[in-house]
């Protein structure tokens, strides 16, 4: 038994190492060597020494400040929205849940363009309306600013955090809250002292993931920060790689490793915060989710959700939808009305081929990622096996490296594989990269779900004669199924949007949708990108609807 377990752990470790350590090792080499792999050069610390230059310190400060601001604000908003949807009698909660998560799935470049049109200080629609209404000379908003960067990032991090938190709220046994109320605590005190405290594994995981995503965010700072002379780590890395006559891989990878070290400290901090404490809220005892009756206040909570939807979805997406029927984005003249963009996308052989590849990779990648993530989370969180921490850390690694740098690691890694491993240039290379990139989220989602399950459920199953696999399947997987579904959707759409690795690993015939969208964008066809973006949103609605229907059916049969 021990030998089989050791063998299985070793295999898991090897797989994760191939997906994360191998490309990282390539990048580490790049950060310590004056040239990329395969070129003559020398080992030195020039890249790391440059980190302490004043410019770079300022860049790091900007990065941490922006990411922290957006994560704190998004977290507060996401907790509020998740509580409203999962634990109150706010009208239309099912629909609101789908609508609130929509912004996460819209390509950031599209919403950035839409917000550029809505909130630019000269001719932005919001500012024009403001000056017309008030006669003010100064604009109301300027999206090309620090606040603009934070606001645009929040549109992605709030639904991302919401997706993490909402199921944890739903899966919580209200007995503890009821006990608190019976002991005389107020609703507010119960919310902060019991509800939020029990959510600590989920909220800290989600906070860290979101904070790290903020550090790695590219579209918002490049679009709204660059014109305001705000530089962050990703825009600096992009500059070092793409804007020099000789790409500065050493400096770029060193900067990425510095960011990674910072983020790793955060992860260690989380381990220490949560270590040794129990957060189980799903036990063998039956319970029914407690819904708070808000009375007339429920219309206020309804209003909060609708306002969020209007601001983050209706406004920018309305602009996209409208623009998709005009010859040019933002020019709403009658003589420019057209259906050409829909026709062009429909008739494009490349789009259909990319869609086929993306669907295949998304379905396979999301499923493989969630299976891998479920296993890693189980080993790391539900066992006392030696090496479990290492397995957890290996799965985390890809999340700590900015995508555009990790993409280079995959390129170097897959290209340098021996001839008998012909992955390079195939769909398999893309699949492996996607699994590596999505695994950290899968592990976090499943870890948080497992953390809420009491150990007595497993023990009970084993005592009654179920095997280890039966227990895993019938107890853990069955109870963590809603989280699995959420993770699957996150992984699927993460794969659908992934560009950094895709652009370096695709080859003629294996294009994916994100690459085709980049080509269209660079080719001056934002209207056609909008059409694909809208199609993706329809897909999201279908997936989310199916997911919620299935979760409800599953919960009702538990």
């Amino acid at each position, binding site marked *: 038994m021990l030998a089989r377990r050791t063998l299985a752990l070793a295999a898991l470790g090897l797989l994760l190492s191939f997906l994360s350590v191998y490309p990282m090792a390539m990048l580490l080499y790049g950060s310590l060597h*004056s*040239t*990329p*792999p*395969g*070129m*003559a*050069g020398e080992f030195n610390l020039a890249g790391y020494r440059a980190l302490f230059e004043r410019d770079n310190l300022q860049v790091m400060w900007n990065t941490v400040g922006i990411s922290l601001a957006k994560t704190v604000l998004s977290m507060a908003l996401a907790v509020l929205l998740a509580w409203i949807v999962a634990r109150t009698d706010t009208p239309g909660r099912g629909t609101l849940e789908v609508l609130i998560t929509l912004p996460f799935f819209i390509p950031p470049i599209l919403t950035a*363009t839409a917000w*550029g*049109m809505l909130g*630019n200080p*000269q*001719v932005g629609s919001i500012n024009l309306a403001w000056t017309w209404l008030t006669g003010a000379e100064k604009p109301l908003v300027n999206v090309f600013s620090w606040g603009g960067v934070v606001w645009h990032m929040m549109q992605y991090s709030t639904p991302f955090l919401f997706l993490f938190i909402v199921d944890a709220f739903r899966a919580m046994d209200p007995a503890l809250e009821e006990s608190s109320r019976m002991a005389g605590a107020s609703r507010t005190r119960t919310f902060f002292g019991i509800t939020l405290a029990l959510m600590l594994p989920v909220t800290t995981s989600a906070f860290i993931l979101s904070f790290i995503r903020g550090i790695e965010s590219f579209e918002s700072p*490049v*679009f709204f920060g*660059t*014109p305001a*002379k705000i530089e962050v780590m990703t825009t600096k890395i992009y*500059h070092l*790689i*793409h*804007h*020099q*006559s*000789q*790409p500065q*891989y050493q400096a770029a990878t060193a900067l990425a490793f510095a960011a990674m070290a910072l983020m790793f400290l955060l992860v260690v901090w989380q381990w220490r915060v949560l270590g040794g404490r129990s957060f189980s809220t799903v036990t063998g005892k039956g319970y029914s989710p407690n819904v708070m009756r808000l009375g007339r206040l429920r219309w206020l909570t309804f209003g909060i959700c609708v306002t969020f939807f209007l601001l983050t979805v209706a406004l920018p997406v309305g602009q996209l939808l409208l623009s998709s029927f005009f*010859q*040019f*984005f*933002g*020019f709403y003249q009658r003589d*420019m009305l057209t259906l050409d963009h829909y026709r062009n996308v429909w008739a494009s052989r490349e789009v259909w081929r990319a869609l086929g590849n993306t669907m295949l990779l998304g379905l396979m990648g999301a499923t493989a990622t969630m299976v891998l993530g479920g296993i890693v989370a189980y080993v790391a969180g539900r066992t006392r096996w030696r090496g479990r921490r290492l397995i957890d850390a290996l799965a985390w690694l890809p999340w700590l490296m900015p995508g555009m740098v990790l993409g*280079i690691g995959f*390129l*170097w890694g897959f*290209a*340098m*594989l021996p*001839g008998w491993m012909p992955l*390079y*240039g195939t769909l398999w290379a893309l699949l492996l990269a996607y699994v590596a990139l999505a695994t950290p989220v899968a592990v976090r989602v499943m870890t948080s779900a497992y953390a809420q399950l009491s150990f007595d459920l497993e023990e009970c199953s084993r005592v009654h004669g179920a095997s280890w696999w039966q227990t895993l399947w019938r107890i853990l997987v069955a109870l963590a199924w809603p989280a699995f579904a959420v993770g699957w959707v996150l992984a699927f759409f993460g794969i659908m949007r992934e560009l950094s690795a895709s*652009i*370096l690993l*695709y*080859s*003629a*015939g294996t294009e994916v949708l994100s690459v085709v969208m*980049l*080509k*269209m*964008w*660079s*080719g*001056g*066809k*934002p209207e056609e990108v909008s059409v694909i973006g809208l199609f993706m949103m329809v897909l999201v609605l279908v997936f989310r609807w199916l997911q919620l229907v299935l979760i409800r059916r599953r919960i009702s049969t538990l």
Partner: protein
Amino acid sequence: MDTRSPRAPRRAVLGAIAAATLAAARSAAAQTDAEWLRVVAAARKEGRMTLYTSGVGSTFHKDVGRLFEQKYGIRFEVLEARASELRERIRSEQVAGRFLGDVHHNGATTTALMLADGNFQPHGGIPNAARLLPAYVADDVRVPSNVQSYGLLVNRNLVKPGEAPRSWKDLLDPRWKGRILSDDLRALGGGSVFFFVMHDAFGPDFHERLAAQNLVFSRDIRNDERRVARGEFPIYIPQLLPYFTQLKGLPVDFIVPQEGRPYVRFDLAVLRNAPNPNAARLFIHHFLDVESQLVYANAGFDPTMQGVVDRASLEVRALLDTKVMGTTVVERQNAMLELAKRIYK
């Protein structure tokens, strides 16, 4: 392991260029019709050709590829990536012994750096290269394929006809302070070409004064054109001429200042150990055919071949007939990028 220097020092670049030019003269002389027919037959036998291009999102190479497929029955595949990504990808593939691409299509500067890195092989002679315009010279490895040039984009609702800049120096007029949207002059691309050419034409003082105009930098080029069209800014610099031709119907004008248009030449070259070398050679020849060149000319690119501009559409011809101003030089590019960073902080 490849042991070539990564920095492509000036001597290496110049050496590679000189050797390629000498060999070109020899191979052109040795070309005969019978030999070329054998190349065409061998290309058909190879049956496919893969182009690696930095023209991300461009439809023109695809149109040229379609013509190639129709004419020769050879399957055309294309891989598009941004210039730096393409370069690193080719380098990694070749170091690892994976030779997947046949023809490389990129700006002359990147091509020169890659030539020094040994990423190409001699094409063996291209018959159409004999009809290149005198300004463009092919060598044993590189064949000039098309030229993209830059001017000014102005919003005609915000800039009255009499106010529009006529010279590049008119950008220094105080009325444009804080009102010029610009590609980043400190970064590789159109911005650095503009910086380089203006520096050589007017000296560093021009840039010191232009920096005082508080240019607003943005790198989202295709969206920036629209921002000017929507009236966010009256002027955008530097505007790529081929992109302007796609803005028909919007309230913008393309202005060629009296000093002319800065430009960048694009080159074609056969990648080292190309799996389909004959098809690669045939494709380069086909790219220089009049019908292929017309695809580019009608889109606003200067063709590199004789007898093409005269056949281009009247609208484009008027713009292509204006003079060109200057371009970048690979050996001074790093120094210019550093200078730009110092001036435009």
